[in-house]
């Protein structure tokens, strides 16, 4: 730890405190204070990074909208964006473009592309489950 310190009291869940003491007693950490400070610092850094990434994404989204204004012919349909996502993530929707269309018909043109893919995944899971039940019934 560096810099000035300040005393404070923190209410900890009992199990967490016991686990922390065990870590200190077994030599994995120097003190409970160190564990708390490190955890707090890591969480704050993660939050700052998250905020930064969110801000970058918002700026990039605005830039993409500007790009579409410059090149209106480049603006993809929701189905194309969802299909692109399926390609990027090797999502099962990649082999079911018809289901992407059905998902959009159901969810609407304003749907989030990830929701479109989730809808398709849900339908495919239901189909697989139904076909499994049929097989079990025959057996």
């Amino acid at each position, binding site marked *: 730890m560096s810099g000035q310190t300040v005393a404070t009291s923190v209410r900890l869940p009992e199990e967490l405190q016991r686990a922390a003491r065990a870590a200190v007693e077994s030599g994995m950490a120097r003190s409970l204070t160190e564990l708390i400070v490190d955890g707090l610092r890591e969480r704050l850094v993660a939050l700052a990074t998250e905020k930064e*990434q969110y801000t*970058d*994404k918002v700026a990039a989204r605005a*830039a*993409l909208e500007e*790009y579409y204004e410059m090149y209106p012919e480049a603006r993809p349909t929701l189905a*194309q964006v*969802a299909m692109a996502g399926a390609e990027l993530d090797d999502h099962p929707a990649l082999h079911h473009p018809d289901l992407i269309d059905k998902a959009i018909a159901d969810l609407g043109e304003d749907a*989030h592309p*990830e929701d479109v893919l989730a809808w398709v995944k849900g339908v495919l899971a239901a189909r697989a489950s139904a076909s499994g039940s049929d097989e079990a019934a025959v057996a």
Partner: protein
Amino acid sequence: MAVTILDAEAVHVLATRWSNKQQRLASLIDFDLARRVGTDVAVVPSTVRVEAGWDRTAPRWAAINRLGIGDHHLDRRSTDVAARLRAEHGVSPADAHIGAIAHGAGEDRVVVITSDPDDIATVTAGTTARIIRL
């Protein structure tokens, strides 16, 4: 984390009006930006920028500069990998650079958007890089 890499043709498509591949490329970028969770980054290797003529200080690239596509620069180790890939496979420096990124990605997921999947498959062989033909 996932890294999406653009090749020179992809950069060219991004900057060309009425390219028939522009909508397809935009849909890939659009989805990446729409993700609710995840730390996906799009990068252009610096050698690809050279090949494609992407000069970030030139006005014609201003709109594309703002899309959040970062530069990837070769360091000493990745330069060695790229040099080896170029010597072994006779690919362009830009493709060798893409291969070096894939080989150095570790746990990161790599996606390469390219018009030349064969060369990219050659330089990314042995990695888990996913290749998307533009």
